[in-house]
């Protein structure tokens, strides 16, 4: 299953600086694994030690939040797009919630 993975922001460094890369897999986990094989260390940028999507990474399959589609087990359609978009956050308080909505970190 061939898909296009789009990576704006700092995540592009994990795939050699490009904002768009082709990958294969039937699920989000398989797509990430495919990219990790080609770009060692990629998985650790996207998933934490428990294999969950990192709080500051927003993953969309098409335009749907992957967390609502099953997280890493979310199916990825043939020819579809997976977007890995870092959170945009900040504030005056150190340690205040700055990651994706409703999630700590």
């Amino acid at each position: 299953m061939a898909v296009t993975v789009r990576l704006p922001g700092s995540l592009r460094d994990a795939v050699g600086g490009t904002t768009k890369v082709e990958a294969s897999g039937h699920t989000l986990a398989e797509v990430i694994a495919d990219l990790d094989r080609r770009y060692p260390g990629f998985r650790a940028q996207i998933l934490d030690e428990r294999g969950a999507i990192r709080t500051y990474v927003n993953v969309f399959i098409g335009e749907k939040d992957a967390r609502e589609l099953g997280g890493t087990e979310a199916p990825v359609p043939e020819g579809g797009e997976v977007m890995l978009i870092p959170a945009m956050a900040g504030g005056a308080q150190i340690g205040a919630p700055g990651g994706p909505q409703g999630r700590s970190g």
Partner: protein
Amino acid sequence: MPPSRLRLTRSQFDRLVAHMREGLTHPVPQKRGEVCGLLAGRDGVVERVIPCENVSPTPMTNYNVADRDLLHVPRIEDEGLELVAIYHSHPVTVPYPSPTDVAEARYPEALYVLLSLRHGAPELKAYAIAGREVREVTEVVIGEG
């Protein structure tokens, strides 16, 4: 690399200031505070202001761009434009990136624009943030139009 300059029109600047003022007068008091958004364009020249929703639970001191608004980033690229800057406001403090702003900066290809009304008159500053280094971009031009 982020742009080395920022150029916007007077009407775009006014749009940013209006957004900042909206953040301070939100009809729901708990939602008053910092505003945030994106600036799209090319080579530091802004073509479009994209206000986003701040969904931080503590908006007076934090911003967090709504997940659905993050989808503007690939759309900007699809339109042949660049993400020139991410902007947010510091309503009553200096227009300089806080330690949290720096720690959360994940778009080294874009500028970080800070707006402030701390002295009553609106201020706008632009910065490049890479790693933990902050560098002010001094070529900020607010032109006609």
